[in-house]
């Protein structure tokens, strides 16, 4: 579904992704973790080419991102992206946020798009908020709407970049529940997160990054109980103390 082969990326002289080799199979849930600045966001953003890669091969859903002929907008329509800061469209209502892309990109009739949106809103537990505006919602609600917005395009892959890091602690659970449901439904997911509960419950694999390098790649139970790399051990120790790693 997603294949990185020898992928490199630089920001000027900063080597943010250093020889990334990674494969995500259909239906797999991959969790990416690592210290702040290690390149997690950059990695996940290359998958829908919010960040272009400089070297190597990256194939997503059969499309080669290093090939100039690849229709990048088509690829992005197949890949949902959920941001740390939600990034809902503030000028549109909840239902407007969810139906905009299906109506304008997929040319689905408005009525049909709204019916589908209501199904998604019910799934994330926000049916009664259909006409609210994003800024009237709590952070947790906004993020659930953002997930519904991503799902409305019927994506083959969903990407999450620290979806709960900007939330008040009491709202993290409601968002993780929605994501766990999605994982159990068989969606292919790449999730940058430090929520170890989520990783333990639904992740098939955990990847640990530092300085742009994948240092460790293991099933969650192995990663959490027997981290091999010294940096990973240190990172996990920090996660368990109140001083959270970025």
């Amino acid at each position: 579904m997603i294949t990185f082969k020898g992928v490199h990326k630089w920001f000027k002289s900063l080597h943010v992704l250093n020889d990334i080799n990674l494969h995500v199979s259909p239906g797999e849930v991959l969790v990416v973790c690592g210290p702040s600045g290690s390149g997690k966001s950059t990695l996940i953003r290359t998958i829908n080419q919010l960040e272009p890669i400089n070297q190597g091969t990256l194939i997503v859903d059969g499309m080669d991102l290093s090939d100039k002929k690849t229709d990048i907008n088509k690829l992005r329509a197949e890949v949902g992206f959920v941001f740390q800061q939600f990034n809902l469209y503030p000028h549109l209502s909840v239902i407007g946020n969810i139906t905009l892309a299906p109506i304008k990109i997929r040319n689905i009739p408005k009525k049909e798009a709204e019916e589908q949106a209501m199904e998604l809103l019910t799934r994330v537990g926000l049916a009664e908020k259909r006409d609210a505006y994003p800024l009237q919602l709590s952070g947790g609600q906004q993020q659930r709407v953002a997930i519904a917005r991503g799902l409305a395009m019927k994506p083959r892959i969903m990407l999450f970049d620290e979806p709960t890091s900007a939330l008040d602690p009491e709202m993290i659970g409601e968002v993780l529940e929605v994501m766990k449901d999605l994982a159990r439904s068989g969606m292919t997911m790449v999730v940058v997160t430090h929520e170890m509960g989520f990783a333990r419950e639904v992740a098939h694999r955990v990847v640990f990054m530092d300085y742009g390098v994948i240092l460790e790649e293991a099933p969650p139970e192995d990663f959490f109980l027997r981290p091999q790399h010294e940096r990973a051990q240190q990172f996990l120790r920090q996660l368990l103390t109140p001083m959270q790693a970025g």
Partner: protein
Amino acid sequence: MLNYTFDWSIITSGQYFDWLVSGLITTLKLSAISIVMAFILGLVIAVMRMSHNKPVRWFAHIYLEFFRNTPLLVQIFFWYFGSYKILPTVINDWLNKTGFEFAAAAIALTIYTSAFIAEDIRSGVLSIPKEQMEAARSAGFSYLRSMQYIILPQAVRITIPPLVNQFLNLAKNSSLAMTIGVMEMTYQARQVESYTFKGFEAFTAATVVYLVLSIVITAMVNLYNEKVLNIHKAA
């Protein structure tokens, strides 16, 4: 001047009243057409100014600098006296039929004001967080579609106070069209004055018209905010 006797009846009925009303209608038409066209053109120029394509960006840049920094009166004269030399004959014929003065004034007002509007919209766009563009692009919208559906609607909301200002300026600037013989409000007020010597009354009428026009434009934009853009909800 001390012996001046006011006579409002001259302008409230009869022939001179009709002149002023026809002037009012011309001013309204000229302003309305130019406002709509200037807004659309301003949007287009603003997007071109931010394009990733260098020649497009530079064209917009030169357009902006040129039309903002030459006097409107000169631009009106340019379109009136000079344009038939550079425009194709078809267009000239059509312009002559539809009233060349009016068209020249409308073109000048549109282009001049579009340059200011484009700059206002551009600063509005720059104030929208870049994450909005990212969200739109990651949903699969092209750059232009992202602008159309996500960025510009938000930017225009922010830009509304300066836009209203540009619309008001345009309505007031439309009085310059009298210099090329467009029989708009100010032109007719002067006509009435030269026939009746009742300049005070005639220009008071014109002043009131511009004032009411300003109030109406402001009210219409406010209404648009509330009804169409849902500003009160999204705020």
